[in-house]
C-alpha cells in the first residue's frame, strides 16, 4: 500500500485513495466544499488546495536523490486540489505551510465575494461548511487597514451579485441562488444516486445557476440535496424557519415508514418534531433517505391524542388512565381469553412484539397479527444485505423497489454503475472516492425487473415486463421453465423473450439477488415458487415488506395461528385493520396516536400512543439487520408506549403480564438470543433468527390495484406532503377507462381502504387492461373499484 507523508505523519492508504482522504486519515484537516462521501469528486470548488510532491524513479529504477543523498521530492508546480489527486507511493503532502493557508484563505475570500451575509436568517446557520471556514480563515485576518486606522475585513468593495433568492424547486425544496457556491453536489447527486439528472448548471461563468428544465423535481429522493448542500442554498421547506441548528435536540434513530432501516436524525425543538435528516450508515443508506422518510413527519405534531378516551353513551369522552382501565375491565369481563386478539402496527419494535407475543401466550389466544403482514412470512427467505446487491452479478426485482424498499433503488443504481463498497479509513467513508465516476451509464444487463405495473427501475433493466396482477405465480413458473431450458409458459402481459433473457442472465451469474414485493408475498403460490427458486439457486432475497419491522415481529412470534374464528375482543394498535375484525368484535381497545375516523367509529376505549419517533426499541430490517430506535423529545401529553399499553390491557384482563418495560423485553432478548440490544454495532447487527410460520393468505379480490407507495396514509396527512402529491393518480389502460366512461384527467372519488379518496384519471397504455391502479397509503392488495361520484367526472 502506498505510504504517504502528510505534514509530519506517515500513513499507509489503499492505492487509488485521494490525497484528501490521506490527509484526513492522517488526522489532519483540509477545507472542502464540493467533495462529498459517496459522490464522485470533481474538484470544482478548489478549496482543498495543498502542496504536494512525489519522488521519481530514474532510468535505473532507483529513486532519484538530491545532492545530500536523500530521495528527492518533485513538487507539483502549482498547488493541487487534493480531492482529485490520487496518492502515489512516497508522496509528500503539505497542508500547513503559509503558502497553502494563504491560497486556501484566498479561495474562501473568492467564495464569499458574492455570498450574501444573511447567516442570521439562514436555516443552515450553525451547520454551514462555508460559515465554519469563513470563521476559520477570515475573522482573524485583517486584509487591510483604512487610512483612519480601522481594520477592514473585506476587500470586496463592489455590489454583490443579486439573483433569484426564494426559488421553489418543488413543494419540498427551496433554492436560494445567491447563496449557491456552485459546488455541484446536488447536480452530481441526482445523476449518480437516484439516477435522474433533473438539476444542472444553466448558463456559464458568473451567470451560472442551478436549475431544471423538467417539471420540478421528481419526489422520491429529492430531499437529500438539502443535507449535502454545503451552504444554505437548498433548504427543506417542511422544516424551514422552524429553529436554529443549535436549538434542536438531535436523536439518532431509524425511519419507521418502510423496511429499509434508513438511519435518521430526528430534530425536535420545544417538544415538536421539526426536521428529519439523514444519518450516515454506509452499510444501509449511505447518506441518503427517501423523501417519505424525510418529509413525511408533519402528522406527528398535529392533533395528537394526549389522554385516554372512553366511550360513554355513544360518544368518546376524555378520561383518565384509571377510568380507561376501569372501562377496559368492565368491557372485557367474562370474555373468553382465548378469543382476545391483538393487532400491532407494522412499525412496532421487537420489544413490543415480544410483549404482545408473551401476553398472547398467557391468554392462550391464537389471534396475534400486525398491520402489513404478508401472506407468507418474510422470514422464510434467506435474507440478502444491501452490500450483497453491490456484489450481485444479476438482480431480479419482482415488485417495485423504489416504492416498497426505497433504499434498494439507490443500491441497485449503485450496482449498475459499478460502484464498490468503500474502504473504511480512520475518518470513516472516503470523502473523495476516486473510484466513483460521474456519468457512468447503468449496466442494464445486470437487472431484470418485473411487476404488475410499470416501475422506475424498469428503465435500467435489460429484461422487463408488466404482468397482470394476480399472475406472479405464473411469472415464477415461466421463469423456472426458462431456467430449465424449456419454452416459458405464458404470463399475461409479459413478452416471453424478456423472461428468457432474464433467465439466461440469471444462469450465467454467480451471485444472484432477488427482490420480491407485496404482490409476490400476498400470493401464497407465487411466494412458495419464489422461495423454492431462491433456495435451489442459492440466491439472497430482499423481501420488501409493507411493515417496517415485519422480520422482527415474525421472529418474536407475532403471527396468527389456529382457526379462523375471529376474536371477540381486540386490542388494536394499528392504523388500519380488516373490516372483519372491526365489525365482528364486541369490545375494541385502540392504542392510537390520532383520533382517526376508524378509531372514532369503532373504539370503546382509546389509549394515547407514542409514534415510532418517540420509542426506544429495535427493528429488524429487510436485510435482517438489528437497528436501534431512540426516543425523540416530542410532546404528546399522557401518551404511552405499546409495551405499557399492552401491560395495562393485560391487567384489565386480570393477568399480570411479565413484560412491563422495554428494558425487561431487552433482557429477555439477551437471555434468549445472546444479543444485547443496547449495544448493537455502529451500523447495526446482522441477526438471522430461525422462524417458521405457516402461510396465512390475505384476501385479494377486486380490480382496484393498490400500488405500493413510499407515501403512507399518515404521511399524506401533512399539509406539505398533501400539496406535493396533489390529487392521487388513478392509472388505467385507456380502453378500461372508456369502458367505465372515464375521461383522461377526470377527477372523481373512489372507495379505498383509507376511506373515500379524490383521484384523477391518467391513461397508461402499458398497464394491463381491466385494472385500476392507485397508490396505497395502507398495506392492502386490492379491492373492488367503486366510484363514488357520477361517472365521467369533471375535466380538470
Amino acid at each position: 500500500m502506498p505510504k504517504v507523508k502528510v505534514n509530519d505523519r506517515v500513513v499507509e492508504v489503499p492505492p487509488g485513495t485521494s490525497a484528501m482522504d490521506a490527509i484526513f486519515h492522517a488526522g489532519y484537516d483540509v477545507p472542502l466544499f464540493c467533495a462529498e462521501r459517496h459522490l464522485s469528486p470533481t474538484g470544482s470548488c478548489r478549496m482543498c488546495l495543498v502542496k504536494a510532491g512525489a519522488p521519481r524513479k530514474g532510468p535505473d529504477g532507483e529513486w532519484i536523490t538530491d545532492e545530500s543523498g536523500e530521495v528527492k521530492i518533485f513538487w507539483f508546480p502549482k498547488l493541487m486540489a487534493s480531492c482529485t489527486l490520487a496518492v502515489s507511493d512516497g508522496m509528500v503532502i503539505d497542508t500547513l505551510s503559509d503558502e497553502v493557508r494563504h491560497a486556501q484563505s484566498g479561495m474562501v475570500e473568492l467564495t464569499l465575494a458574492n455570498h450574501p451575509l444573511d447567516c442570521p436568517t439562514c436555516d443552515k446557520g450553525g451547520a454551514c461548511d462555508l460559515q465554519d471556514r469563513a470563521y476559520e480563515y477570515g475573522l482573524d485576518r485583517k486584509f487591510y487597514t483604512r487610512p483612519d486606522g480601522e481594520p477592514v475585513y473585506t476587500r470586496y468593495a463592489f455590489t454583490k451579485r443579486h439573483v433569484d433568492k426564494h426559488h421553489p424547486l418543488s413543494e419540498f425544496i427551496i433554492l436560494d441562488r445567491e447563496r449557491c457556491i456552485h459546488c455541484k453536489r446536488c447536480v452530481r447527486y441526482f445523476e449518480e444516486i437516484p439516477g435522474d439528472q433533473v438539476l444542472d448548471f444553466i448558463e456559464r461563468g458568473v451567470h451560472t445557476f442551478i436549475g431544471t428544465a423538467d417539471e420540478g423535481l421528481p419526489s422520491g429522493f429529492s430531499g437529500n440535496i438539502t443535507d449535502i448542500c454545503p451552504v444554505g442554498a437548498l433548504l427543506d421547506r417542511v422544516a424551514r424557519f422552524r429553529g436554529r441548528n443549535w436549538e434542536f435536540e438531535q436523536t439518532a434513530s431509524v425511519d419507521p415508514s418502510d423496511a429499509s432501516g434508513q438511519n435518521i436524525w430526528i430534530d425536535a425543538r420545544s417538544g415538536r418534531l421539526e426536521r428529519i435528516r439523514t444519518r450516515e450508515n454506509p452499510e444501509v443508506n449511505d447518506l441518503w433517505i427517501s423523501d417519505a422518510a424525510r418529509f413525511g413527519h408533519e402528522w406527528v405534531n398535529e392533533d395528537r391524542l394526549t389522554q385516554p378516551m372512553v366511550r360513554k353513551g355513544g360518544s368518546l369522552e376524555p378520561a383518565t388512565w384509571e377510568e380507561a382501565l376501569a372501562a377496559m375491565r368492565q368491557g372485557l369481563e367474562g370474555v373468553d381469553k382465548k378469543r382476545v386478539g391483538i393487532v400491532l402496527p407494522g412499525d412496532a419494535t421487537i420489544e413490543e412484539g415480544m410483549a404482545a407475543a408473551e401476553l398472547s401466550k398467557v391468554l392462550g389466544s391464537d389471534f396475534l397479527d400486525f398491520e402489513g403482514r404478508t401472506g407468507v412470512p418474510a422470514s422464510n427467505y434467506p435474507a440478502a444485505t444491501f452490500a450483497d446487491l453491490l456484489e450481485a452479478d444479476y438482480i431480479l426485482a419482482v415488485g417495485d423497489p423504489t416504492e416498497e424498499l426505497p433504499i434498494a433503488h439507490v443500491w441497485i443504481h449503485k450496482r449498475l454503475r459499478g460502484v464498490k463498497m468503500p474502504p473504511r479509513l480512520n475518518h470513516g467513508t472516503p470523502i473523495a472516492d476516486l473510484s466513483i465516476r460521474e456519468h457512468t451509464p447503468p449496466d442494464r444487463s445486470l437487472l431484470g425487473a418485473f411487476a404488475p405495473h410499470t416501475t422506475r427501475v424498469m428503465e435500467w433493466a435489460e429484461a422487463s415486463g408488466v404482468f397482470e396482477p394476480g399472475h406472479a405465480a405464473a411469472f415464477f413458473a415461466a421463469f423456472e421453465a426458462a431456467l430449465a431450458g424449456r419454452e416459458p409458459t405464458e404470463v399475461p402481459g409479459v413478452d416471453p423473450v424478456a423472461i428468457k433473457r432474464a433467465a439466461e442472465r440469471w444462469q450465467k451469474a454467480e451471485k444472484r439477488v432477488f427482490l420480491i414485493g407485496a404482490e409476490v408475498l400476498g400470493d401464497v403460490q407465487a411466494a412458495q415458487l419464489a422461495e423454492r427458486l431462491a433456495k435451489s439457486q442459492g440466491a439472497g432475497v430482499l423481501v420488501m415488506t409493507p411493515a417496517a419491522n415485519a422480520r422482527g415481529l415474525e421472529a418474536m412470534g407475532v403471527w396468527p395461528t389456529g382457526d379462523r374464528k375471529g376474536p371477540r375482543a381486540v386490542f388494536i394498535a394499528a392504523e388500519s385493520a380488516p373490516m372483519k375484525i372491526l365489525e365482528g368484535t364486541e369490545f375494541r381497545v385502540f392504542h392510537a396516536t390520532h383520533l382517526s375516523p376508524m378509531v372514532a367509529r369503532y373504539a370503546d376505549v382509546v389509549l394515547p400512543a407514542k409514534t415510532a419517533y418517540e420509542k426506544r426499541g429495535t427493528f429488524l430490517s429487510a436485510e435482517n439487520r438489528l437497528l436501534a430506535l431512540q426516543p425523540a423529545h416530542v410532546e404528546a401529553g399522557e401518551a404511552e408506549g405499546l409495551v405499557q399499553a399492552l401491560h395495562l390491557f393485560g391487567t384489565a384482563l386480570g393477568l399480570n403480564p411479565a413484560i412491563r418495560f422495554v428494558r425487561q423485553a431487552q433482557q429477555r432478548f439477551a437471555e434468549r438470543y445472546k444479543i444485547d440490544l443496547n449495544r448493537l454495532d455502529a451500523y447495526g447487527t446482522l441477526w438471522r433468527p430461525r422462524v417458521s410460520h405457516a402461510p396465512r393468505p390475505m384476501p385479494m379480490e377486486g380490480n382496484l390495484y393498490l400500488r405500493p407507495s413510499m407515501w403512507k396514509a399518515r404521511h399524506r396527512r401533512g399539509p406539505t406532503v398533501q400539496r406535493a402529491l396533489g390529487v392521487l393518480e388513478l392509472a388505467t389502460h385507456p380502453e378500461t377507462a372508456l369502458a367505465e366512461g372515464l375521461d383522461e384527467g377526470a377527477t372523481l372519488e373512489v372507495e379505498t381502504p383509507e376511506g373515500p379518496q379524490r383521484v384523477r384519471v391518467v391513461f397508461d397504455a402499458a398497464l394491463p387492461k381491466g385494472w385500476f391502479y392507485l397508490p396505497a397509503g395502507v398495506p392492502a392488495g386490492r379491492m373492488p373499484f367503486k366510484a363514488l361520484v357520477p361517472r365521467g367526472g369533471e375535466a380538470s
Partner: protein
Amino acid sequence: MGFFDDKQEWLAEVFAQYPADRRRSALMPLLRRVQQDEGYVDFERMKEIAELVGTTATEVAGVMSFYSYYQGLPTGKYHIQVCRTLSCKLAGSDELWHTLTERLGILPGEVTEDGRFSLQAVECLGSCHTGPVIQINDEPYVERVTKARLEALLEGLEQDKPLEEVRRTLPDEEKMGKATIELEGEGGAS
C-alpha cells in the same frame, strides 16, 4: 412531428460515431443540427433530443446554455453578437452595446419589428487586439466597431446589401479603441 423523424439515417450516422452505451455524446451534434436548420432550439426540440440521447431536458438545457452559439428563442435575419469580455470592454463594448440597443430598440431575446436584427452579448470572440468586436451570424468578425462603422453596418444591412460587401466597405476606423466611442456619463471605460 419531431424534428428528427425524417432524419433517421443522419441520426444513425451520428450515433455510430460513439460507443453504444454513450449516446449522450451525440448531444452536441444534435443540438447543432437543430440550431443550424431552425435558427434556434425550442423546448420541444430539447425534450426530443433528451429522449434521443437518453438524458433529461435539464441536461440538454445545461449544455445548451453553456454555449452562446445555441439560441433558445428565434433570432433575426442578422443575429448580432457583441463581445463583452475584458479586452473589448476596455475598448468600449459597453458603449457599443448601449448604442446598439438604443438604435435598434431591442434587448437580448427580442427581434426588431422588421425581423432583421437580434442581439446577444457573448464571451470572448478571441480577437482582443481589434476590439470591440461583433459577429453577425456565423460570418467573419466586424472589428474595431466605432459608432460610425456601426451606423454604416446597420444601414447597409437595412438595405439588404450582402453582409460581406457591407463589411468590406465600412469607413476606416478613425482611431483604435475606446477613444472613438463617445463616452456616456462618468461611469464609462475611462
